């Protein structure tokens, strides 16, 4: 069990800036995110796309903004808990106990939900029969490629993940790459390598085809794919790898007894508290009259939420508003002035 002043759910830009706002007030935060790194939508959806509305930064990409925020919160030596999702929250004597799907437990008077549109999860295959094979012969990511050695593997998708794995696994497996149209959005260089392999007969490309059925009783045996003309082909396959990107899902948040309105959490605009004392929501996931889903709004919300978190984490201390330009205390926390 980890005890901390604040738990932040979501390591997107708003969650990261909340670390800063809490940090300069002397509060320790632990950050939990379902992705494998910080940045949230900035890093997953638009790492290379420029953002033009961060105050004082005329132009920066999602990746650059993430890097700058990580740099800004470096002095606070925050602990990140990646690749896990918060499953359960319960109240114990006025504090919150929180458990992740990896079994990690945290205790804190404050929880800040900065979860955007929810946690990122792989987009699953559209067929219902896929469920019984998921995790056994259908995968949305690869942790051990030796599983596929000398096997027949069908790979779906048109992006870099699909192309990279098709190329890699073609060395040891019989790979069929299937995509719904002829164009692939992955790197042209990788695709031309794959086309070379196809010419040599070391890999098969099937376009424009889509999956129509998954066959097999206990064990996956084959799949049927169909093109727009209605022609169907059956492909014998041991494994299916599906790379249709990530999807954002609110997930277990809906079970925590919070008011939810159209996938967002209503909050007050004084301290961004939800209907539960000590649980706050900031960034895209919160909702109040006039809410704008902008990163800069989330930064403002981070600043205000941190004040209420201070009051709850330090009930016996008086909160003092301080500027970073002038406060010796803040300079110490930032490591500019040695204690």
């Amino acid at each position, binding site marked *: 069990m980890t005890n901390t002043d604040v738990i932040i759910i979501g390591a997107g830009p708003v969650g990261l800036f909340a670390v800063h706002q809490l940090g300069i007030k002397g509060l320790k935060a632990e950050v939990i995110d379902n992705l494998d790194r910080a940045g949230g*939508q900035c890093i997953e*959806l*638009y790492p290379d796309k420029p953002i033009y509305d961060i105050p004082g930064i005329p132009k920066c990409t999602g990746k650059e903004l993430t890097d700058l925020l990580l740099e800004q919160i470096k002095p606070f030596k925050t602990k990140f808990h990646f690749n896990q999702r918060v499953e359960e929250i319960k109240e114990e004597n006025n504090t919150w106990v929180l458990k992740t799907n990896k079994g990690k437990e945290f205790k804190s008077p404050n929880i800040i939900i900065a979860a955007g*549109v*929810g946690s990122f999860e792989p*987009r699953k295959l*559209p067929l219902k029969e896929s469920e019984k094979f998921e995790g056994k012969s259908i995968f949305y990511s690869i942790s051990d490629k030796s599983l596929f050695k000398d096997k027949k593997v069908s790979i779906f*998708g*048109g*992006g870099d993940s699909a192309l990279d794995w098709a190329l890699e696994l073609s060395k040891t497996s019989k790979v069929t790459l299937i*995509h*719904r*149209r002829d*164009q692939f*959005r992955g790197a042209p260089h990788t695709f031309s390598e794959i086309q070379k392999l196809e010419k040599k007969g070391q890999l098969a490309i099937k376009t424009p085809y*889509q999956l129509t059925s998954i066959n097999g009783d206990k064990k996956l045996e084959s799949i049927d794919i169909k093109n*727009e003309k209605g022609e169907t082909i059956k492909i014998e396959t041991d494994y299916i790898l599906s790379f*249709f*990107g990530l*999807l*954002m*899902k609110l997930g277990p948040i809906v079970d925590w007894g919070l008011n939810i309105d159209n*996938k967002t959490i209503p909050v007050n605009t004084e301290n961004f508290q939800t209907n539960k004392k000590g649980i706050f929501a900031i960034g895209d996931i919160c909702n109040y009259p006039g809410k704008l*889903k902008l990163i800069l709004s989330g930064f403002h919300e981070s600043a205000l939420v941190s004040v209420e978190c201070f009051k709850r984490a330090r009930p016996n201390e008086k909160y003092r508003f301080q500027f970073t330009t002038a406060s010796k205390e803040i300079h110490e926390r930032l490591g500019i002035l040695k204690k």
Partner: protein
Amino acid sequence: MAKITYIDCLGNQKTVDVKDGLSVMEGALQNDVPGIDADCGGSMACATCHVYVKDEWFNKTGKIIDAEQDMIDMAHQPKKNSRLSCQIIVSKDLEGLIVTTPEKQS
């Protein structure tokens, strides 16, 4: 202003007036038309405002840029007439447009 008709996968339909300049996605959200999630808010980053456009309307809804096509790859059961409704901008030329929402968005 244009009248836009949204039909769900079961055939239930709703026709609403949508102001010029709004997207077909925004028209759905503002009028509580179910079946369009629009998780990313119209930034072409999620494919949860996926619709099928009736064939006779498809060419009138404008060109599909590569980035939209790339996102449609990830939509639930994309078809030849798939569009992201956040990328169809309403004008009087679209008076009477009919779109169908898929069985699900994710």
